[in-house]
C-alpha cells in the first residue's frame, strides 16, 4: 500500500469517529435541521465534480462532468439555504425567553 493510501484510510477512520462523537447529544427538535445541514456538507462532492470536468477527455466525459457540477451545486446551495430557512424560525423565540 502506498503512503498516500494509508493517509486516506487514517483520515477516513478518524473522521468516522469524529462524525459520531460530534452529534451524540442532539435534541429531537434539531434532528431535521441537523440532517439538512449535514446534507449540505456532502455537497463537497462539487470539488470533485469541478476537478474531473477540468480534466475530462472527450464529449461523453465532458457532459457527465457538466451534469455532476449542476447536481453538486444544487446539493450545496439548496442544502445550506434550506437549513438556514428552517433555523431562522427558531430565532424569533429567543427575545421572548430572555424577557422573563
Amino acid at each position, binding site marked *: 500500500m502506498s503512503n498516500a493510501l494509508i493517509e486516506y484510510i487514517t483520515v477516513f477512520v478518524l473522521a468516522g469517529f469524529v462524525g459520531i462523537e460530534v452529534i451524540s447529544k442532539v435534541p*429531537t427538535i434539531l434532528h431535521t435541521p441537523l440532517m439538512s445541514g449535514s446534507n449540505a456538507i456532502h455537497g463537497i462532492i462539487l470539488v470533485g465534480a*469541478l476537478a474531473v470536468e477540468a480534466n475530462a477527455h472527450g464529449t461523453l466525459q465532458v457532459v457527465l462532468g457538466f451534469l455532476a457540477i*449542476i447536481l453538486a451545486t444544487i446539493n450545496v446551495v439548496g442544502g445550506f439555504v*434550506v437549513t438556514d430557512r428552517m433555523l431562522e424560525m427558531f430565532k424569533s423565540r429567543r427575545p421572548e425567553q430572555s424577557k422573563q
Partner: protein
Amino acid sequence: MSSYIVATSGLTQSEGVHLAYLVASVLFILGLKQLSSPKGARKGNITAAVGMIIALITGLIGLHPSSGRVILMVVGVAVGLLVGTLSARKVKMTAMPQMVAAFNGVGGGAAALVSVEEYMRLVAHSSQGVVFVITVVFSVVVGSISFAGSVIAFTKLQELMTGRPITYPGQQAVNGVVVVAILSIGVYLVGFGTSVALVVVLLAIALFLGVAFVLPIGGADMPVVISMLNAFTGLAVAATGFVLGNTVLIVGGTLVGASGTLLTKMMGDSMGRSLGNVLFAAVGKAAPGAGASTAGSAEGRSVRSGTPDDIGVMLAYSQKVIIVPGYGLAVAQAQHVAKELASALEKRGVDVAYAIHPVAGRMPGHMNVLLAEADVPYEQLKEMDEINDQFKLADAVLIVGANDVVNPAARSDASSPIYGMPILNADEAKNIIFMKRSMRPGFAGVDNELMFDPKTIMLFGDAKDSLTKLVASVKAA
C-alpha cells in the same frame, strides 16, 4: 506530501492546498457541533458554509482547464446556483422534508457520475489499483441507490404517488437477484477485468435497487429513510474522495456518513422503531397496505360528530385544553388560526398547551418550526414525555390534523404497522375533539380506534375553516 518540516518560510502549493483543506474540515466539524445545540444551530450552518467556500476555492487551485471548459464549469455552477437557491427559497415549510430528500439525491447522483467519469478517464490509459476500483464501484452503487431512493421518497412525500407501502409478490426474490448481480459485477471489475460498459450497467442496476428498496416503505417512515440515504450519500462522497485522492472529500463525506448513521438511529428511536423494522416491515407481506383492515374498518361503524358552536362553548368553559397539532394543520396553513384560538381561550383563563409528538409533522422538529413561525410561545410547546401525564387532567384535547401519533393501536394492536411507536395519551382526556377532513386513515394508512371512542367528537372539515369557526364561537361564548 513531504514528511519533514520544511525549514523555509514559504509553503509549496500542495502544502497550502492541504492546509486549506484542513481548515475547511475543521469548520465542517465545528459547524456540525454547533448545529446540534439549539443556541448555535444557525451559526453552525454558516460555519459549515464558510468551510465549503474555502474548500471550493482551494479545489480550483492547480486545475488547468481550457477556456472552453472554464465556461462550462461556470455555466454548470450558475445553473445549479439558480435551481438550488430558487427551490430552497420557494419551498413551503410543509414541503421541507421532500426538499431535503431532493437535495440529498442530487448529491448522491453527482458522486456516482464523478466516479464513473474518473474511471473512464483513467482506465483508458493504464490499469488501476484494487482500492481505486473498489471505491469506484462503491460510490457508483451507493450514490445511485441514494439518488433513486431519494426520488421515490420525494415522490411519496409530494403525494405524486401513494404514501402507502408498495409490495408485490416475489419482491424479496427480485431484490435478492439485483443484489447478487451488483456483487458479481463488482467482484468482476475489482478482480478480473476492466469495462466502462459494466460500470454503466452497475449504475443502472443500482438505480433500480434504490427504487425497489424505498417503494415498500410507508410514507410515515420516510424521514428515517431520508436520513439514511443522507448517510449513504456521505459515504459515496467519501469513496469518491478515495477515487480522486482528495482528503477534503473523504473528511466531508465520512463526517456525514457517520453522523447521518447515528442520526438515523436516533430518529428511529424517537419513533420507537428499529431500522430493520422501518426498512423491511412491509416486505414479505403479501397484500399491499397490510394492516389497513386491523380492528375493523371505518365502514359500518358510527362516530359522533359535533358542530363548531357546541365544541366552542365546551372549550370556552374548560380549565385545561391541550392541542395536538399534526401534519394536517400544516397543510391547511392553520397554525396561525390555531394560535388565535389558543389566545382567545387564554383570555378566558383557560390553560392551553401544545403537545408535540417527536414526529409531528413529517419529520422530527418539523412542527416546532411551523409553530415558531406562527409566534406560538416556546413555553407552550410541550414534548411528549413532558405532557403525557397531563392528558388525564385535561378537560379537552383538540386534535388538529394529527392521527397516527394519537392512535391507541400503537399500544395495543401488535399487528398494526405503527405498533410500538410511543404515542400521546390523548385518549385519557375527558373529552376528545378530533378535527379531520374526512374518515380517511392517516399517513401510515391505519384506521384510528380513537375516532370511535365514546368520548370523541368528530369535527369534519378543513382544519383552518373549523378553527376559524371555533375562534368565533369561543369569543361569543
